[in-house]
């Protein structure tokens, strides 16, 4: 549970920030995927964009968590919570 929070929450914050910066600079209506314009409403793109950002940031957090855990296992240190 704690680990899930450690992964999901910071990535939520960073993903949200990334979303804000990205879509301030770029209008979703101008987006092209593989050269084709995206046929979705702006709201849809914002939502999907947000979850995509969150997915990536969460993946990064999860990897960090995993590395920390395995390094502690191998050196026998405790994370000290």
């Amino acid at each position, binding site marked *: *549970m*704690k680990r899930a929070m450690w992964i999901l929450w*910071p990535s939520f914050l960073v993903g949200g920030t990334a979303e804000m910066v990205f879509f301030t*600079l770029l209008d979703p209506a101008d987006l092209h995927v593989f050269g084709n314009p995206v046929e979705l409403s*702006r*709201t849809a793109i914002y939502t999907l964009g947000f979850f995509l950002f969150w997915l990536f940031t969460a993946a990064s957090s999860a990897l960090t968590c995993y590395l920390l855990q395995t390094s502690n296992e191998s050196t026998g240190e405790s994370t000290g*919570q």
Partner: protein
Amino acid sequence: MASPVPLKVVKDIEQPASEAPLYEIRQKIYPRAVSGWFAHWRLGLVVATQLLFYGLPWLTWNARPAVLFDLASRKFYILGMVLWPQDFIFLAGLLVISALSLFLFTAVGGRLFCGYACPQTVYTEIFLWIERKIEGDRARRMRLDGAALDADKLLRKTVKHLLWLCVGLWTGITFVGYFTPIRTLLGEVISLSPGPWETFWMLFYGFATYGNAGWMREQVCKYMCPYARFQSAMFDPDTLIITYDAQRGEPRGSRARSTDYKAKGLGACVDCGICVQVCPTGIDIRRGLQYECIGCAACVDGCNQVMDKMGYPRGLIRYSTQNALKQDWTSSQMAARVFRPRVLVYIGLLLLIVTVWSTALALRSPLKVDVIRDRAALMRETREGKIENVYRLQIMNTDEQAHRYVIKASGLNDMRVTPFAPVSVAGATTQSVVVTLEVDPARNKPGSHSILFQVEDMDQPATRAIEKSRFIIK
């Protein structure tokens, strides 16, 4: 600058802090209700922040919502202002101002934000209030949770969760109401026809509220909140914190009200455990400052009540500072330390940024123009032998009223601009205008020339935008 206060992290005795596998068993905390000076303050702030949050989307201004983040058309309406993506810098400025204010508040008052205004605290408070109404006080809640499932328990639990879900859902609707006009939204919700994305966000935000305030509670502060961990960097020995006066309190021990405890060698703490029972994060403040303490002052109120009952002076647990506690300062000595260099630097920076930010905002031009050259044709020769270049002008009127603009061009001899007549642009919209410039090649040299477009507001000539572009004569 003063060195940061080392936060003493005390391991819980009841829950051995061995690195738990994936799921640690959390001991459910049953905060006891408390009344007193600080509880009133918190209640006041819960009401104030929530009136603001739930009320703002309903406010109208010029026949439209006063605050609306219209993401679908990429415009933010805030009272009389319309902000565009180009105004991003103001949003960034606002974030910097909020961060600095938080530093300032934290340096002076410790975790004031956590204890009184943080949405996590506020919603937990609301949810706890519902829980108390349905399931009773602390002892009854504990008994209920321990009891076997019967009709009464089932009923109480169901009603509680339903009410929680209602609050959550209403919060979700309000949240989406900042992005879609709330009256329209509510109409759609009632007729069960909101858009799929709106439905999704209402449910997402609603469930997040329900989960955070109903289930996660203090765990959000303990494990998720980055601010809770930064605090030691913002604290110094003159920061207000919740303290237990160990000198006065120890050695603790129970006694009758009539005992002369001083004669028995006891301190003022009667070891009643009230301070632990009221604590929403379940810690014992008597063990010293801990990072779990959100500075809610519930233990201050709780202990003061005990002190009153015992006939002892209040303030065994109180707001104080490390220095004040160590050196036995009076409150005026403590207040004199408020304006220390660190605080003055924060105040200075804050004043500076607020001034620059608000000046820039006030001077923001309500007109923006982008010039794009027509990419299809560089230039064209007309039948009369003139040279023509075509441009697309994006005229953004960020004012709420419609305006008429005259387009002029300069940089070459005898330029003719089409359209010659003023262009009318409705309030808070962008209009794309195709502009043709024509010059006589006999009167201008061939080559690529730098030219200027000038778009001027007919009603307020002071409002104008000047944009560069190029004109090509072969």
